[in-house]
């Protein structure tokens, strides 16, 4: 049983294609405070490797990456 992560904000990028999920995530995170968590939902099959790379490059932590009902869900913590 994994711990439940409580998000501060939700961003639905369902139906959006590369690079929109990355762009929208970047914009949303810029408006958030350090330590806050963004839950991002995407359907683009490129999203999992993209969000991993985005996290590694920007230093914002990808806390969890999962698939649920055909959607990709990411929990990102603002650095």
């Amino acid at each position: 049983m994994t711990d439940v992560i409580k998000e501060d904000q939700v961003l639905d990028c369902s139906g959006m294609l590369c690079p929109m999920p990355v762009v929208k995530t970047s914009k949303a995170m810029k408006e958030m405070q350090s330590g806050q968590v963004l839950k991002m939902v995407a359907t683009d099959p490129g999203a999992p490797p993209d969000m991993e790379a985005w996290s590694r490059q920007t230093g914002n932590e990808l806390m969890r990456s999962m698939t649920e009902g055909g959607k990709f869900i990411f929990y990102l913590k603002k650095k």
Partner: protein
Amino acid sequence: MSVWKTNDPDTKKILYVQTHGEKDPERTATPFFLATAGAAMDNEVCIYFTMNGPQCVAKGNGDTIIIPRKGGGGKELKFFIEQAQEIGVRFLVCQPSLDLHGYTMDDMIEGVEMIGGAAFNDMACDADAVIGF
């Protein structure tokens, strides 16, 4: 002084080079959207338009260059241009490739900057990555 603006050693600098224009619409959108993704990763990103590249950022061409899609329903290049500009990607051109098409800076869309060959090479040497199309 470098064309690059960042002084932060942690910010990476990515330089895209676009050489294609009106004749190859299928080759025009990719540099814009890769640059957009790069900027969304907090990098400093520029696109240098040379050879036929300046056609991509000439006034009006954003509406007339349509990125083809098999089965129809292509998208206008303007969408990708605006997406890149909105996130802070800078567009650069040089005089000889404007002359090639009879363009002046007045023919370029808002925000396009003029550099020369020396500045381009200087940027390339300072960049963390240079990607050519």
